[in-house]
């Protein structure tokens, strides 16, 4: 049994047995592989690097296709990620490749939060997988795995050392994803400089405790190659999709006035090594590491954060169900409390509003009463005036009749004068009455209005 498969304890009672003939289960790996072929494979690569460092070109070169890419601007306000999925096929193997590129990485003035969108993206993929896993009715075997399997970190070819942004970002990512650092645009560095640069980078990574992905050494068939490759990290790559005629062949290369840098020439750059390691030799291992190490770590942290434990404070194993029940009760109680609170606040508000309205009502009532009183007063005053007027009228009428009686009947000389005087008195009486009634009418009108 392989010694590195730690979880596989020696089975008690599983005695080895020898077979007397050909049984046929040696076809098992083939059965498994055939199933996988029908299902297809899934691979997700995350490329982090500054704008213009050659991420998209390298992806195009690696996978021999032209992914639709457009140049990003240098003026992004914050780092964004752009994910694109492609279905590739080589002979009978179908690969669903997702390439995630960072947009605007390293362009901002303040790069303190540059790594955060990347970390968030990776966590989000883990989260979706975890949710799917915890669903009641789930379909894991059909699930399109979007977790990031490999992260290519593009180091700019300064020739000196890593930038602090690089170190910070890689430190944040090393426990979440398999990091493979690559030196981009390696045709700007000479061989000797490159050698020193690589050593410097590796020592910086080690001294800062950044754990990059080490190619696995446990499988004898590939251990040797992987060890060699581990020594060549980080790979210095050049990407190009243009073809140049070299000798009598067309090769992928970059043409300069002083020469041609061939992408697939081992002397010129490490592109071939990268391709070998990333795809041909370790793709499956990358996926496995993502699932068994990074995802499990995330899951554990997330569930512990939520309060689930495997053992309770007395170190007795607690089943997930108990914890879940406890959590659920707690949660429901919390909900109830919040509901009560809200209800109270609501009642309070209603009361206040009611009081306000009552106040307003009372006020209005008061004013109405006041006005009514005012009117009543005026009306009384007018009545009084009318009464006085009536009195005057009657007293005047009395005086007139009395005056008429006092005059002797045979008074002819002054008869006309009397008549005139009478007429004049009558007229003036009528006039006065008219005045009075007019005044009365006016008063009444005033009162009525």
């Amino acid at each position, binding site marked *: *049994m392989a010694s590195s498969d730690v*979880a*596989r304890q020696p*089975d008690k*009672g599983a*005695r080895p047995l*020898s*077979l*007397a003939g*050909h*049984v*046929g*289960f*040696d076809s*098992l*790996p083939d*059965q*498994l*592989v055939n*199933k*996988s*072929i029908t299902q297809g*494979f899934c691979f997700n690569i995350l490329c982090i690097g500054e704008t213009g460092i050659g991420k998209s070109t390298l992806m195009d070169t690696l996978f*021999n296709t032209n992914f639709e890419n457009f140049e990003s601007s240098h003026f992004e306000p914050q780092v964004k990620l752009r994910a694109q999925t492609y279905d*590739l096929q*080589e*002979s009978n*193997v179908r*690969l669903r490749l997702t390439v995630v590129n960072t947009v605007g990485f390293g362009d901002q003035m303040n790069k303190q939060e540059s790594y955060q969108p990347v970390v968030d993206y990776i966590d989000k993929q883990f*989260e979706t997988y975890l*949710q799917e896993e915890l*669903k*009641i*009715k*789930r*379909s894991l*075997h059909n699930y399109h795995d979007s977790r990031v399997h490999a992260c290519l970190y593009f180091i700019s070819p300064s020739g000196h050392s890593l930038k602090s942004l690089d170190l910070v970002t890689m430190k944040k990512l090393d426990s979440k994803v398999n990091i493979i650092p690559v030196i981009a645009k390696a045709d700007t560095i000479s061989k000797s400089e490159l050698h020193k640069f690589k050593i410097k980078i590796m020592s910086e990574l080690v001294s800062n405790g950044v754990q990059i992905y080490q190619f696995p050494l*446990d*499988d004898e*068939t*590939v251990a*040797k*190659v992987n060890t060699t490759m581990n020594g060549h990290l980080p790979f210095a790559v050049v990407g190009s999709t243009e073809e140049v005629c070299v000798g009598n062949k067309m090769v*992928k290369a970059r043409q300069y006035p002083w020469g041609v840098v061939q992408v*697939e020439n*081992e*002397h010129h750059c490490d592109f071939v090594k990268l391709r070998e390691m990333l*795809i*041909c*030799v370790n*793709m*499956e291992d990358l996926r496995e590491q993502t699932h068994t190490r990074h995802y499990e770590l995330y899951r554990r942290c997330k*569930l*512990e954060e*939520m309060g689930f434990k*495997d053992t309770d404070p007395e170190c007795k194993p607690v089943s*997930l*169900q108990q914890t*879940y029940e406890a959590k*659920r009760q707690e949660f429901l109680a919390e909900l109830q409390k919040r509901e009560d609170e809200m209800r109270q606040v609501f009642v309070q508000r209603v009361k206040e509003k009611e009081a306000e309205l009552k106040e307003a009502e009372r006020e209005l009532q008061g004013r109405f009463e006041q006005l009514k009183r005012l009117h009543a007063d005026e009306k009384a005053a007018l009545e009084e005036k009318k009464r006085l007027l009536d009195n005057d009228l009657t007293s005047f009428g009395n005086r007139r009749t009395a005056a008429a009686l006092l005059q002797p009947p045979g008074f002819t000389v002054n008869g006309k004068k009397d008549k005139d005087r009478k007429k004049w008195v009558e007229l003036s009486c009528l006039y006065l009455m008219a005045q009075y009634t007019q005044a009365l009418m006016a008063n009444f009108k005033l009162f009525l209005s």
Partner: protein
Amino acid sequence: MGIEETKKESELEAEVRLELRQSASGFQTGFIRGTDLFGYVGIEAVLDQMRRKTMKAGFEFNIMVVGQSGLGKSTLVNTLFKSKVSRKSCTPDYEEQISKTVKLHAVSHVIEEKGVKMKLTVIDTPGFGDQINNENCWEPIVNYVNEQYEKYLREELNINRKRRIPDSRVHCCIYFLPATGHRLRPIDLEFMKRLGKIVSIVPVIAKADTLTVEERQEFKERIRKDLTSNEIRVYPQREHDEDPEERLLNDRIRESIPFAVVGTDKEHQVNGNKVLGRKTKWGIIEVENVAHCEFANLRDLLIRSHLQDLKDVTHNIHYETYRVRRLNESNMNFSELVLTSWPLKNGTDTCETESQL
């Protein structure tokens, strides 16, 4: 390694592509790259990687044999795996008597063939159908199967879980039908009905050398009719076929189940070859001869072509059904706990149907 050498040599306009292929073939055997020079990426290599990884990790297979005593269960298992996997109960030094209840017996062995390691566990069920009153004799078996699912579920729900969860779930249950020649008996129907829902059942006609070819055909047809009329699902189930090719293949299998098998571990000489067979006064029944019995078909189905499929069906369908039921029972609906940023939506929360029924 080619790569090392070329790197050491300076000023060589190496024809990298060819060299790479040659050096690559040193560590990856039997690889066909794309013939188009500029179309090569190497995605195919993932198949090889997968093969290597699974071979290193090894496989597990748990098979349960159920049937009355004396039907040749242990012999058949031994014949299938060509080794003394089970101990036959008819040998003189077998001391156990018929137990009052069905007791399950799991024995594990590690067998290896051409670099492929397999941990084979055979679960025997002595006492099944042997009592006078056989009501509920399937209960211990159903409990055992569910227990294994429970164990797996527990481990899967753990916070700190193992890299590879030990798989003790029953992948396949071989049910032995006695070769009466008539039809399915009540105990057969009851058992297969109940267990067909939780595990993949492969019914076989045991000791088929008592039936002539015509009798065998009629018996099989009657059994198939009984199975359909009682809505018993046996492996391979129609609903699990994923594509037309698989359906075609499985249809052919479905037309010939249950397989009429004969088991033995003795070898005899026939026409100058050593064959596994049973020697009787009227001839030698060759176990691996397709004209004599269908053992070879059973072996091919179980081991050579559908072993992985059996495991997949158990994992993706039967185990998931159990899980849904179990989580609904204990009301563990994680979407209720809307904590932090969990906008969970469950597919459908309730287990409306059981697997395919």
